[in-house]
């Protein structure tokens, strides 16, 4: 079909379809996870969770929540910095969507074409760079709200997010060394015989912990937890803008799980038959793990979070990197 159309038309179609697919995927996941998180949390707590909307399983709960949020009045604080405040949710949401560009969903056959939007040579670099943008969006939200609670919440969030990016990148670097490439597809291909979680177990732990921090999920959710009343940076948002923060969080959760599934859990490799199903199973297993952790652990205090990031995760990730480098040097 590509041959039949003039190049500019083809590019235009692709430019529209790809982002739509990403947004649709994120949207569907958000709806699924709104229901899923509440259901899993309920079962852990010996309750039932949503059961009203969408039949006895309550699966359309996400749609009900979405409709409610969309119908709410969009209130902007009077003395807010208008443009900064309005754009903040988008700046938080867009990186979560952009991450999907380079993540493969599977391969059609052992050496067939890979289902990925764009197989960038330095995909990992792209991922790390894009993921940092969320912190900027959170800062914009806190600053733009012009409220001392939002500001305090945002400052804490920033310090935490920036601190945890270092061990995150270092953990990923271990995988990059082991695979010898910055391309996610190459990394998955390198896990054909053995998933990286085994040699890079420490790296995986650091990566997962740092990811939970980047996602502001318990035990690192002090930013939106009991801290200084209400919700910190997102206090002054309601309706659609608020739901964008939510979509961003769930989208980022799925994106991070997808990244972990590809970098550490072997992507589409699996017993019996490699394929898309393995990627999805691994991704949602990691999402379940995040939900499980959230409803088990109490939360850290901000100074303890910083301690953990700098004094525990960073040394561990450096250790992992050094060990990986030494191993590669010995083998070569």
């Amino acid at each position, binding site marked *: 079909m590509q041959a039949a159309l003039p190049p500019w038309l083809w590019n235009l179609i692709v430019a529209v379809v790809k982002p739509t697919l990403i947004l649709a995927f994120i949207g569907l996941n958000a709806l699924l996870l709104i229901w899923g998180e509440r259901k899993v949390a309920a079962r852990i707590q010996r309750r039932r969770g949503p059961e009203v909307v969408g039949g006895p399983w309550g699966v359309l709960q996400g749609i009900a929540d979405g409709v409610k949020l969309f119908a709410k009045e969009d209130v902007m604080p009077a003395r807010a910095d208008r443009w900064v405040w309005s754009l903040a949710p988008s700046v938080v949401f867009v990186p979560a969507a952009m991450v999907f560009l380079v993540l493969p969903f599977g391969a059609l056959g052992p050496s067939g074409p890979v289902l990925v939007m764009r197989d960038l040579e330095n995909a990992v670099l792209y991922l790390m760079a894009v993921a940092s943008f969320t912190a900027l969006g959170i800062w914009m939200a806190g600053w733009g709200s012009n409220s001392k609670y939002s500001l305090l919440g945002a400052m804490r969030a920033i310090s935490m997010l920036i601190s945890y990016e270092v061990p995150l990148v270092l953990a990923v670097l271990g995988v990059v060394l082991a695979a010898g490439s910055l391309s996610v597809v190459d990394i998955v291909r390198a896990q054909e015989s053995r998933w990286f979680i085994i040699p890079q177990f420490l790296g995986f732990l650091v990566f997962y912990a740092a990811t939970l921090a980047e996602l502001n999920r318990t035990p690192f959710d002090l930013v939106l937890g009991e801290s200084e009343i209400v919700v910190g940076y997102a206090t002054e948002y309601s309706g659609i803008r608020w739901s964008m923060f939510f979509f961003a969080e769930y989208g980022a959760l799925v994106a991070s799980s997808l990244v972990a599934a590809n970098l550490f859990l072997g992507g589409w490799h699996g017993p019996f038959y490699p394929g898309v199903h393995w990627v999805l199973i691994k991704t949602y297993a990691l999402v379940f793990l995040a939900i499980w952790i959230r*409803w088990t652990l109490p939360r850290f205090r901000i100074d303890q979070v910083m301690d953990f990031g700098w004094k525990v995760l960073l040394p561990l990730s450096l250790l992992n990197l050094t060990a990986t480098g030494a191993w590669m040097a010995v083998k070569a």
Partner: protein
Amino acid sequence: MVRVPRVDSRSGLRGAWRAVKSILVGHGITFREFLKEPITIRYPEEPVPYPPGVRGIPSLKVNMETGELNCTACGLCARSCPVGIITVEPMVGPDGKRMQYPAVYRLEFHRCLVCNLCVEACPFDSLEMADMVELSQYHPEALVFERDQLAEIWKRSRAVRIAGGQKI
């Protein structure tokens, strides 16, 4: 006296191992709870099993043979009520004398403590706590019950108890 064991957060490798283990054990607990049945009841579709003797609303007992209340309008219940929500007025006979039957028996349930003191004070066994606890109304005025309403409530509660196999 016994000193409570204070979990030692030791530093170093042993401390780290203890810390990790505590987190893993916690996850084991939540996972096992995850696999268990929910203990919630889907109210109002599923009924809540109230035990016999649950304190609902004080109701006036009716003599099932004669159809009359046991109440003699003595007013002891009104006097024993800590919040004073009971109003009793005896009937006045054609000869102008006070009869042993209430003309007015008003219970302002919206202030009731459900403390049971009125039931205990009654020497004529004419008050009983009905098994009805689902009594919500939209206006506080609707929660003021009169003599005949209280008798109806008692009859309904009795029917429910008999149907549930309780000995009356």
